[in-house]
């Protein structure tokens, strides 16, 4: 029997499309992104339809999401950060639904592709850097000069700070991608053992059950971590310490 734990990450076009020799096909990845956006849109629209003082179930979910992201942003980026609430909320919901929809058997997890997470991280990074320069002007360069360091050390410390800043989108995107891809691969590997071992497949089956629960936690946690780090970077750009 053949075990293909990486088959689930394969991208295939649903509608093939080429513009100016650039492949812009609508793929299974695009499909699941569209589904994620549609789910978030439906949840928010249906949840806020009644404006009830005592919320129903859907409205409670929407209010929970709002409160969660709002307090996250306020705790990490202060009151000034609340201007960027729409961006942060969209980012969190998109990643959360991407991760969670990926838990449906047979679905596709678009956050398990480095290019997707890297693009999001680079967008955040460029936006935050531009914001820093927009708010502080040239003084934002002082962000790369550690406070209280002796002048002789600066030629060494400033490049290190600069690289540590430039590397942020890499660690931000790799973290989300590695966690999603690693977990899903592991689940597939153990699931294949269940069939291969016959009666003794009970043991890997128990592992798969535990892993499934663990993966749900990871799906939420990684959306959370991505959002928190975005808020922290936003805080750096706004307050510069």
């Amino acid at each position, binding site marked *: 029997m053949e075990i293909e734990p990486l088959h689930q990450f394969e991208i295939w076009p649903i509608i093939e499309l080429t513009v100016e020799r650039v492949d812009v096909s609508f793929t299974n990845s695009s499909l699941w992104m569209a589904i994620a956006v549609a789910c978030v849109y439906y949840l928010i629209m249906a949840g806020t339809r009644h404006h009830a003082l005592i919320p129903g179930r859907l409205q409670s979910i929407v209010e929970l999401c709002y409160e969660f992201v709002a307090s996250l942003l306020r705790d*990490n980026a202060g009151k000034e950060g609340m201007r960027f609430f729409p961006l942060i909320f969209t980012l969190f919901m998109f990643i959360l639904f991407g991760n969670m929809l990926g838990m449906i058997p047979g679905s596709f997890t678009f956050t398990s592709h480095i290019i997707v997470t890297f693009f999001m991280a680079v967008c955040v990074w460029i936006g935050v850097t531009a914001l820093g320069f927009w708010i502080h002007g040239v003084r934002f360069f002082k962000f790369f000069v550690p406070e209280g360091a002796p002048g002789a050390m600066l030629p060494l410390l400033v490049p*290190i700070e600069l*690289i540590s800043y430039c590397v942020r989108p890499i660690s931000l995107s790799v973290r989300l991608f590695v966690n999603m891809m690693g977990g899903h691969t592991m689940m597939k590997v153990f699931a294949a053992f269940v069939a291969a071992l016959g009666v003794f497949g009970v043991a890997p089956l128990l592992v798969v059950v535990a892993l499934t629960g663990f993966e749900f936690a990871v799906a939420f946690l990684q959306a959370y971590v991505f959002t928190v780090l975005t808020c922290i970077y936003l805080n750096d750009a706004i307050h510069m310490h």
Partner: protein
Amino acid sequence: MPEDPDPNFDDFDARLRKVRETHDGPAEDHADRGKVRGRFGPGIQVGIELLAGVAGGALMGWGLDQWLDTTPWFFLLLFFLGAAAGMLNAWRYLRRFASPEQTGSKPPD
């Protein structure tokens, strides 16, 4: 542990808030601290941080070398600086996520 002199739960919220305010300062104050609750397997996260530093530094150095035709000097330099930056990031990550009590951040300018 001392006995609670006032075993009454009616004003528990108010008393808790009072204790918290004297302990943490008013709620407004710690809005700016990069404070995160909980710990999520810091090991692998720190590994990613270290790796990203080295890989990012090496990649930038290689790009500069290709552009300025100075192989291998920028690569060598940025490889080590990148490793240092990775350690710096890992340390910051640990300080922020693994022990949220010790965020050494100062209030903003």
